[in-house]
């Protein structure tokens, strides 16, 4: 079991009222799963994803990642945990504008203090695999949206995460580019055994996953 959420609540207080973002979420995600989270705007999809990615905190409940109680961990250990095991892909790509494609992909390795020759090998592999060797010295602004997202995915995968979290990864892409990214996710999931959790609005994209999770007003309404 990679992830286990038990009775997760998250709320914000506004004007004396407690407004629930997530209500009583119970969820188990096996290693190697491919889950699509769906639901209307404001239903808590992204919040759930951020909590899974340990970027955001919750107010009540237990979260076990790889058997470790995330809710009891200190910030330092929690961030170490997500740096080790989780990769993120964003709708707006969030590449660093001042870095080239190569450098963007390399950066997570720098933070992990991977040695220089090893870094070179890993980044080259990744460029090869995503077929963007020719673009490695370009800056994000010089790429199309689809290519940028490809780099985003490459960056997320460079540190070999167990879990890939994607928040509407195809939201800013046209349908062809979106399909390519989805194919990529599927391949990663099937061939490399990466667990994928994606948030999406599109039925078509959701269909790439093995399981669909539907949220409404912070509750899971169907699995």
């Amino acid at each position, binding site marked *: 079991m990679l992830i286990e959420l038990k009775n997760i609540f998250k709320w914000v207080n506004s004007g004396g009222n407690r407004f629930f973002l997530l209500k009583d979420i119970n969820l188990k995600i096996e290693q190697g799963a491919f889950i699509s989270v769906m639901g209307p705007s404001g239903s808590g999809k992204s919040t759930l994803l*951020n909590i899974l*990615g340990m*970027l*955001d905190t919750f107010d009540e409940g237990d979260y076990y990642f790889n058997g470790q109680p995330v809710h009891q961990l200190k910030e330092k250990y929690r*961030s170490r945990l997500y*740096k080790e095991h989780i990769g*993120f892909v*964003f709708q707006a790509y*969030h*590449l*660093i*504008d*001042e*870095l080239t494609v190569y*450098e963007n992909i390399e*950066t*997570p390795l*720098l*933070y*992990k*203090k991977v040695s220089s020759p090893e870094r070179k090998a890993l980044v080259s592999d990744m460029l090869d695999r995503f077929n963007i060797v020719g673009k490695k010295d370009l800056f994000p602004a010089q790429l199309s949206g689809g290519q940028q997202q490809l780099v985003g995915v490459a*960056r*997320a995968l460079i*540190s070999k995460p167990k879990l890939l979290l994607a928040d509407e990864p195809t939201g800013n892409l046209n349908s062809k580019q979106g399909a390519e990214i989805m194919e990529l996710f599927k391949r990663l999931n099937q061939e490399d055994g990466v667990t994928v959790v994606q948030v999406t609005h599109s039925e078509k994209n959701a269909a790439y996953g093995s399981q669909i999770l539907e949220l409404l007003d912070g509750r899971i309404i169907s699995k």
Partner: protein
Amino acid sequence: MIKNYFKIAFRHLWKNRLSTALNFVGLTVGLASIMTLGFGVYAYHSADAFIENKEALYTLKTVETNGNVSDQTTYPLLGEIVHSAPEVIGATHIQGWNWPWLKVKDIETQKNTKYVDTSFFKVFTLPLKYGNSKTALKNKYDIVISEEVSRQLFGDINPVGQTIQADDSLNLTVQGVFKPINPYSSVAFDVLLPTALLELNPGFKQGADWYNTFATNYLRVKKDTDIEALEHTVLDIAMRNYQNTEGLKKLRLDSFLNYREGYNPTVGKIIKGSLATIFFILLIVVINLLNLNTSIIYNRHKELAVRKIIGSGKRSLIMQFCIENGILVFTALLLAGILFVQVLLPAMNAIYGSRFGNIHFNLGSDYPLLFGYFLIGLLITLTVGVLPTLKIISFPVVTAIKGKIHNSKNSFFVRNAFITVQFALAIIFICTALILNNQIHYMQNVPLGYDAQGVSIVKLNLDFKDREAANSRIQILLEQLKNNPYVQGFATTEVIPTAYHYNYNDFYDPVTKAELNIRKGFTGTGYSKTFGIPLIQGREFDERRDASENNSVMINKKAMEALGWKDIKNKQLTEKGGAEETYNVIGVMEDFHYQDMQKSVEPILHYYGGKRGLGYNNRYLSIKTTPGKETVVLNTLKKSFDQIPSRHAFDYELLESRIHGQYKLLEGILGTVNYVAFLTILISSLGMFGLISLMARKRIKEIGIRKTLGAGVGKIAYLLSKDFIKLVLLACLIAFPIAWYVMDKWLQDFAYRIAIKWWMFLLAGVIALCITAVTVGFQSVKAALANPVKSLRTE
């Protein structure tokens, strides 16, 4: 990793090149100024470093019952103190008298010469390059010279034991060569001679009695000496020996540590002012960087969030910002160093050099300063790199990545407070510059009470080879002057306006016994006429009555009033001390400003200095010519003087330029203040310029929407700039009282001063506002003129 940091840093600096450039310019000029001022302060503080154990070093001050304090005592006092106070380890005079011409073979030189006692080297631990400080100056005919004099006379050899001929008559033996002394040192000399030699001089010996107070004394005492007890001993000696103990209250031992500030208060002010200025410039520079960095970092919050998500720790984020700022700061520091050595230091020397000597940056000895500058650079880097980063990285990444971070009210407050402080400082400097400028202008234009126009001053003391022959030649020249139609008057005197000695004595009216301390000097025939000093009573000195005129004195109105006289009919004055001579008062001059306007007119008295000519007392030949004919007259004179063999060349100066020259130091200070005022307003404006362009970029959407809703350019420019204008107005409110207080205090130093007027502040405020308006206006109009369709699309 480090390489990566640098790469990103460069790209960021380049991306924000406008603010980078602004920061860089402000930083470079600011740091260069800090370096220059810092070097001045450092030179001043390290100048006396060669004097060891200054705590045990004291100077003697005469304190009178009327509150007057002076540095001088009688000459024989020191010997008596050494004789009877065992706690004094060593003591010396540093006595100025004459500067003998030193000759070795064909080379001759005359340098700042001081006479000192045998234990001089015990008091001042002046390191010798050659020679033995234990034995040097023990002998009457010993001489110790500076490295520079040694090189001039002997070349690069060790001259100890060699002979120097002084004034073509005395043979002196070189006993030591001392290393160069920093020009800012409290003690300045190039040649040291023993006082034993000076005491052979009859002219000196005559005055060096227990009456005249002209000697300065330096004493080194044993550790744990009871200074109060020693002061008692000294006063006891004085009371037993002084011929005039009236009004003598105390002989105070002043620590040498306070010597320089006491000796020249202006220097103390310059140093304090420099330190304050360094601090303020540093503050302004740091504020600029902090403000700009804070703004830039808010624009970069997404990047920071992404970095955190992909694994960056807080430490590496801070590191990244520090490196970015470090590049900026240290490049600026390097360039500032060049600016400092090449431009600002020479400029500073031009201002203060003539008064205090030129200082030069010498890597070999001034390296501690480099560490200081490096430390300042590091400190700036850390401050501006860490502080703005700390806050932003503490935001939860989720909020940051969604771009939901806004400058909090708190950070706006801090930023606004910073800008206000910057501008308040700038306005204070502008006020200071304006007021000082007015004061100097006032001092230069206030009526002097005499007429300096057309008056030229010739220095008579040219060290003639044959004084007798020279005198007779000069007599002839003066006769010719009398007949020169362009010459309206001339005089040969010891004193001239702008050059009165600090020579005072007590005089009393033998009838009323009214007593007065009067400043005195020798003048003679033609003095009042040459300088156009109005006589209000009596007559001028007249060389045709030469025989009796020696008993005559002239005084100024101030003296007459202070003595309680209505007129000078049958009035006499008796000089205290020595022979108690009595003089007839023959004339009263209007109070003319014989010294600069910082000092008030004191009672003065002129003795008759003898017939016009190269007399014993006469240092200056002053000639009043028809305006415009100065050059003709003086050139003729020069030709004649050049034929008289002398060591110095004939030279003259216009009195007007001498008067002007009195304010050189003040003008130098004004120049510095002007520069600093300009600098502070420049750096502050650069900062504001950068801020508003960042702000406009951040508010680009808002501006676009407002424009589509119909707001005009003026409205939008007003929207963007009104906050800054408000801050500058606030800064004015803070700055004015401070500037008023500081300047009011400073103006107390001037005997004749302007009243501080409200318009000076108004003008300073208007200047600051105009600069702000231009700075802010340019950017906001640019932002307001942008096509809204374009700006809305970019979002």
